[in-house]
């Protein structure tokens, strides 16, 4: 890329003065974005920034191979703009969201309807894509599910047992988090950020803290960065183990299902040992971490981690060795790597399709600059692939945490939270256990948060689940769903 590029470059967890972000006419921004996406860039965030009664479009792109991010914005605009989605399906939900939030209509969008649909009633009451035919029947699942899970509505178009199309309607847990963060940070901000997706508390809190630190032009103390890495990887270990158990439970394979549920608890308890909360609440804050690890607890975590990982290995070995499980997992819910790339999948769902995408590696920030695990990739794109990537990451994250526990850096864990500079744009990416968590913070003239954009990995990946179900048996939906295990509240925001 050269200086004539319409995008300004920056790296993960850094900031750029807002006036230095290239300000392009809308059509130019769209052309340039489409061209970059064609070149292999990935859309991390595509959102609106309200200004003087109009809206600026802003784009955050990631060049994974170049380890760099790029940002640009449009002139304030209103009305409509030509949609990116027909040529670049990864923009699909982003454009629906902008239409919902700012009323900017993407002309030519193939399926324009509100993304969260709360003003017009419940999301399930919206219009759904329908397949016509005498033998086609519709199955509606949710928003209230049989298990204790989050609310979401799934509408299947089936021909017999075969799913022709699945449409997913979310929004039941819309809390207005992005709006609540504007004007902040407030007293409640920390708690709100940790509640974006409760199972990714450390991931979102770290992204928020990194963004705030970048806005202030600083960085957390090294020991805090080290502790964040450990907490993030513990979160990954606990969730991956729980997911493997849940996958086993969905195919009624009890040995692994029973064991993994317990081991997940053991791993969550390690996070509790760090900060007193099993989900890592209250640990990560702008400026560092609120808790430190003393030598005794370091040793105890190491010891308990070894035991939990040994148990997990046993439980997973049962799973991989069972032919009945393999026959259920293999070739179920397949997403091709081309589809995954077009849809902009991130995280383990993308890696299970053979795409090498890992923020910890591609856009290393914090302690991940010093400690890296090999990226876990599996080519098959099916439920087996997603289960397998989880297992590889359990092994590699476990190894990484072990190594890090052995050599903690010296120093304190918390500095005073840096004052955010006015008119700055910061981008922070964190590889949460599901995938790329993207936080974009823009400050106003007094250094207050003017616009805060959150992109949970689930935002990118829900469409992947819908594609995975095409041509599948409807009875395979639960196991496909579990293999992605996406967040509802992370999308509902």
């Amino acid at each position: 890329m050269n200086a004539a590029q319409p995008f300004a470059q920056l790296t993960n967890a850094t900031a750029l003065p807002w006036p230095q972000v290239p300000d392009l006419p809308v059509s130019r921004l769209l052309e340039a974005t489409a061209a970059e996406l064609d070149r292999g860039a990935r859309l991390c965030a595509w959102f609106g920034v309200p200004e003087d009664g109009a809206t600026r479009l802003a784009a955050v792109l990631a060049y994974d191979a170049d380890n760099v991010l790029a940002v640009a914005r449009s002139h304030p605009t209103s009305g409509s703009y030509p949609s990116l989605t027909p040529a670049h399906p990864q923009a699909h939900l982003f454009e629906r969201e902008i239409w919902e939030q700012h009323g900017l209509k993407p002309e030519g969008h193939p399926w324009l309807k509100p993304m969260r649909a709360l003003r017009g009633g419940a999301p399930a009451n919206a219009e759904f894509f329908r397949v016509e035919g005498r033998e086609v029947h519709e199955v509606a699942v949710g928003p209230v599910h049989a298990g204790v899970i989050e609310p979401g509505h799934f509408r299947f178009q089936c021909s017999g047992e075969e799913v022709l199309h699945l449409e997913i309607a979310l929004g039941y847990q819309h809390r207005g988090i992005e709006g609540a963060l504007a004007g902040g940070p407030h007293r409640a901000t920390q708690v709100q950020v940790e509640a974006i997706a409760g199972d990714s508390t450390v991931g979102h809190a770290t992204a928020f803290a990194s963004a705030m630190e970048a806005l202030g032009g600083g960085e957390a103390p090294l020991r805090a960065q080290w502790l964040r890495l450990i907490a993030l990887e513990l979160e990954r270990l606990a969730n991956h183990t729980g997911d493997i158990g849940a996958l086993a439970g969905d195919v009624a394979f009890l040995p692994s299902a029973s064991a993994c549920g317990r081991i997940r608890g053991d791993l969550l308890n390690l996070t509790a040992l760090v900060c007193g909360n099993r989900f890592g609440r209250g640990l990560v804050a702008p400026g560092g971490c609120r808790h430190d690890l003393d030598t005794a607890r370091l040793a105890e975590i190491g010891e308990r981690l070894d035991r939990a990982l040994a148990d997990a290995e046993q439980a997973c070995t049962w799973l991989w060795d069972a032919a009945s499980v393999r026959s259920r997992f293999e070739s179920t819910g397949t997403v091709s790597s081309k589809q995954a790339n077009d849809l902009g999948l991130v995280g383990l769902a993308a890696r299970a399709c053979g795409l090498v995408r890992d923020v910890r590696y591609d856009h290393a920030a914090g302690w991940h600059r010093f400690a890296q695990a090999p990226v876990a990739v599996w080519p098959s794109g099916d439920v087996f692939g997603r289960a397998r990537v989880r297992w590889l990451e359990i092994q590699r994250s476990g190894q990484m945490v072990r190594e890090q526990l052995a050599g903690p850096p010296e120093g304190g864990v918390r500095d005073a939270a840096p004052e955010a500079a006015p008119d700055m744009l910061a981008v922070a990416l964190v590889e949460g256990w599901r995938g790329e968590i993207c936080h974009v913070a823009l400050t106003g003239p007094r250094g207050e948060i003017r616009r805060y954009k959150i992109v949970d990995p689930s935002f990118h990946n829900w469409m992947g689940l819908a594609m995975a179900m095409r041509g599948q048996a409807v009875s395979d939906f639960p196991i496909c769903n579990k293999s992605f295990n996406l967040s509802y509240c992370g999308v509902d925001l």
Partner: protein
Amino acid sequence: MNTAVSFLELPARLAAWLLLAPLLPGIINRVKAWVAGRRGPPLLQLYYDLARLWRKSVVMSTLASPGFIVGPAVAWVAVAGAALLMPIGAAGGALSFRGDVLLLIYLLALARFATAWAALETGSAFEGMGAAREVSFGVLAEAALIAAVLSLSVQSGSTTLDAMLAPSAWPGAVLLASGLFAVLLAENCRVPFDDPNTHLELTMIHEAMVLDHSGPPLAVVLHGASVKLLLFAVLLSEAALPIGRLAPGAGAAALAGSVLAVTAGIGLVESFMARFAFRRVPLLLTAAFLLCLFALVLAWKGGAQ
């Protein structure tokens, strides 16, 4: 009709069937819990559940006709009637007559029809899917059951359950037992055909059909299912072992032990095996059918009687 059966014996046998049946799911769950290292639910959990459901009121869809309630009742009566036809060791069946085996098969089919009918009454997509699955897999399971019964009939030269189930332990018994065990798992919605523990409507077969039932009708459905499980366990035991040839006391003990072993076997299968994808279920049921068919060939050509 066997007039030797006294008037008291019939109700006593019926009571024994109805009272003992809910024990089986309890045993299966204990076995599964034991394998998983959990304490598991009480042995008598199903009894508690039935008592609780019986005290509850019924929630009924405004779309459903009385068939929604009648269906489970008919199915329960049919299964209980089928149970009365089953001989208990040397004591024979409570009701026994020539060709009673045909009635047994028809009663089981009637129970399936009534349950599917009640499911369709709700007009729900889940129930419709469940009924469609139950009926399509039922066709295959029924074929295997008929082949099994035919082989017993050829083997014993009789169409009376008493005579058919008494001898056994012939070379084909192993084939027959394997086939019938698969049929038992399929007919009673156990792993690998169905998952009795699942809460996922989209993957259910039998459970999906009764999702909308509540209160006493649900209790009737659950109880009927346990009687059906006991019936199949008894059928399997007597088809494979010469229990009818033993003295009544020894026969009863052998039958109880065998039923217990079958039940524990179900628990072990569920502990160590994942369920199949639906597209593979017909393969396993066809295999069960073939096993029973080979048993038939063996009975026919093996110079039985």
